[in-house]
């Protein structure tokens, strides 16, 4: 059973076209939800940590939100340099991390 599911698998946007990436989870006892950005051939880069439903975090054109069952990564007016794979991970009460398979974002100029 998948603990973390990300959708869509791939997303193509025009520059300036805002959208959202979804991360849904089924772990019991969420202790933290994390968003990462990964560029080809590199390690994931840490973006945000969210701990409880209703929490929001922002960084430049990115905004992460959390509910009891899912998290969204909103991208406002994206630029080509935002193209990357975005990974979501959760940490549960049993001290285990679960990663989603990622959303590959391509922003065209």
């Amino acid at each position, binding site marked *: 059973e998948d603990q973390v599911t990300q959708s869509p698998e791939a997303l193509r946007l025009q520059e300036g076209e805002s959208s959202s990436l979804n991360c849904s989870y089924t772990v019991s006892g969420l*202790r*933290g939800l*994390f968003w*990462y950005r990964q560029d080809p*051939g*590199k*390690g*994931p*880069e*840490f973006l945000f*940590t969210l*701990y*409880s439903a209703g929490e929001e975090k922002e960084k430049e054109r990115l905004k992460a939100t959390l509910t009891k069952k899912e998290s969204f990564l909103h991208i406002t007016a994206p630029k080509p340099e935002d193209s990357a794979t975005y*990974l979501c*991970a959760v*940490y549960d009460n049993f*001290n285990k*991390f679960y*990663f*989603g*398979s*990622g959303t590959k974002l391509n922003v065209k100029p």
Partner: protein
Amino acid sequence: DVKVTQSSRYLVKRTGEKVFLECVQDMDHENMFWYRQDPGLGLRLIYFSYDVKMKEKGDIPEGYSVSREKKERFSLILESASTNQTSMYLCASSPLPGTSGGAGQYFGPGTRLTVT
């Protein structure tokens, strides 16, 4: 800034060789992890360690072992490399969870290992 470094960015080894991948973190984190990442399979946990000389198997430990003699260093060992171990290997570290919840993992740049 947290820094996690890995000994090599690219590595080519022959089948049957013993391979050592080294990882060092400079933030005094208790937890360290080794993953492999393959297209279509995502990140898969090989081993992790929550303290010096402690280790726990992850989801795919077969064919691998680890060593953690010092807090800042976590080594992944391929006892006898095989072609199906060709992959991107990622090391990560994280602090112990605080009272507010879990702490995220910080990743190194990765080692692209090719076994021929």
